[in-house]
């Protein structure tokens, strides 16, 4: 397909998918300009691939709003390093995907521009916060999309929507041009229709960036070498991720995937990550604390719409701009983050959370040092839930992250891949690897993808 035809076809698909509300900005004009650029660009590893971008990663051709009113109309004067790398590799940057405002949420119901619909059941959520990116891949608009993870925001929607979602190791991919949310957690991550699509995008994006000193000085990720069996691979099943009250469909899907891994020759053994139950409360201290600090920059002075307020001084400007500009979940996190960092409470909450986070990271280090190559778990405790089901109780929404938050806190790579369906809804299986061991994780995932029927009902 020529670059021109790809632009036309991608535009047609964006238009067709419009009712899902997964896209915030796209235009045929921008797609045509990308096609013109690609027609004079040498072929690269991503030639012919259109990629959608979560709208918290800056691009210069279209706005970057983070799905927030406070950045309405903002167009970045520079582009993110990952965007430059994708474009140099031959990819077509195809539009900006909807998300939970500032990536805060687990259902993409928190966008200031309306909720994103699950492509298979419009009454359900696609997961979040990168719900728009997941839906654009699941609906066949693009074969790959960028998301961002702070605590599962790619793996969880990937599981809900039945696509592949990969969070690399912390410090693997440059965050220059990612609007900061939780700086000790944020990772630009990728959705793919297949493991191979996601792996190819990740390989191109990864590697040290002089503009982001938090990237590690390591070469880019190597593409995984395809496997034909799992002999010699030790897979750990952490018992804390398989509680007695686990959703029966999720359990059936995992059982089937585990049986497949054994049949392929893997050694499967039970392990323990004893501090797992502290991951969500730890996350919901560290994350709001960092969010409150990062979002202090949105004050109506340098970018975005301004609200002057009644006091007519600079404090009234800050308060009115932020009060008008941020939605309910962002306001809640800023308030919680400010509270846990405030005088008299910082030791009790923030300092303690950092210490418990170390225990969670040590759990992972211990099992990987003990001969386990990969961990396998469910990605989510349930399939996609109904819209509105968890919006009144923030803590219930936070618990949707129970199986994805630990790897984010530990900084290790993890991914979700579709392993079957229960009553028509996709189920995701999660693989977690040791730091910077993405290639092995992706190779095992690639074989599982070819072995396990991702659309078959797991309970008959």
């Amino acid at each position, binding site marked *: 397909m020529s670059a021109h035809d790809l632009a036309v076809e991608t535009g047609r698909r964006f238009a067709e998918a419009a009712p899902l509300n997964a896209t915030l900005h796209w235009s045929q004009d921008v797609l045509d300009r990308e096609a013109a650029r690609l027609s004079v660009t040498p072929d690269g590893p991503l030639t012919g691939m259109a990629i959608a971008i979560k709208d918290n990663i800056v691009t210069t051709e279209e706005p970057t709003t983070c799905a927030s009113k406070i950045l309405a109309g903002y*167009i970045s*004067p520079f582009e993110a390093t990952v965007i430059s790398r994708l474009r140099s590799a031959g990819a077509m940057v195809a539009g900006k995907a909807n998300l939970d405002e500032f990536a805060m949420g687990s259902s993409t119901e928190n966008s200031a521009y309306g909720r994103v619909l699950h492509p298979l059941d419009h009454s359900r959520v696609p997961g979040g916060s990168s719900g728009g990116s997941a839906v654009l891949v699941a609906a066949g608009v693009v074969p790959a999309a960028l998301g961002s993870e702070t605590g599962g925001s790619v793996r969880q929607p990937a599981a809900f929507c039945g696509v592949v979602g990969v969070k690399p190791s*912390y410090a693997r991919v440059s965050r220059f041009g990612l609007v900061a949310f939780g700086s000790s957690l944020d990772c630009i991550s990728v959705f793919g229709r297949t493991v191979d699509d996601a792996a190819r995008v990740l390989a191109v994006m990864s590697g040290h960036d002089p503009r982001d000193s938090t990237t590690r000085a390591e070469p880019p990720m190597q593409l995984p070498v395809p496997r034909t069996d799992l002999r010699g691979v030790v897979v750990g099943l952490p018992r804390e991720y398989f509680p007695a009250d686990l959703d029966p469909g999720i359990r059936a899907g995992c059982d089937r995937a585990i049986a497949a891994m054994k049949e392929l020759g893997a050694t499967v053994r039970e392990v323990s990550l004893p501090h797992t139950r502290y991951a969500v*409360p730890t996350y919901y201290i560290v994350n709001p604390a960092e969010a409150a600090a990062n979002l202090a920059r949105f004050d109506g*002075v*340098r970018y975005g719409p*301004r609200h002057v307020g009644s006091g007519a001084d600079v404090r009234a400007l800050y308060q009115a701009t932020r009060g008008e500009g941020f939605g309910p979940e962002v306001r*809640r996190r800023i308030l919680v983050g*400010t509270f846990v960092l405030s005088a008299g409470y910082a030791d009790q909450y923030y300092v303690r959370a950092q210490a418990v986070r170390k225990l969670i990271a040590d759990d992972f280090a211990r099992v990987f040092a003990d001969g386990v190559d990969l961990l396998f778990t469910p990605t989510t405790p349930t399939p996609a839930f109904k819209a509105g089901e968890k919006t009144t109780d923030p803590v219930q929404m936070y618990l949707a992250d129970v199986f994805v938050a630990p790897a984010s806190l530990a900084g290790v790579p993890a991914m979700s891949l579709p392993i079957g369906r229960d009553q028509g809804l996709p189920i995701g299986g999660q693989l977690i690897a040791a730091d910077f061991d993405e290639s092995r994780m992706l190779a095992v995932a690639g074989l599982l993808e070819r072995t396990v029927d991702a659309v078959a009902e797991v309970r008959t």
Partner: protein
Amino acid sequence: MKIGEAEVRHVARLAELAVAETDLPLLATQLEGIVTFVAQLDEASVPADSTAVAVGPERLTLREDVVNPIPMRHGPEAMAPVFIDGFFVVPKLGGMAEE
């Protein structure tokens, strides 16, 4: 712990965030729920000599000490709500001048 409307008002002021008086009761309930939930970390047994987790590179890589500006498509005047003669314009400092 109990979180009341006064606590929310105080934290909102620290965060420079306008919160309507009518929103205070719900926010207080929600914040109390969240803070009670995260307080279960008190049950975790943390060793006395524990250290905070460190993610990212073992040491930061230093760049050459040269100015290497990032090419910009447009300047601040295209993004700022009010930008005159090279300056971001803000209202008078008011009470902040004394703080």
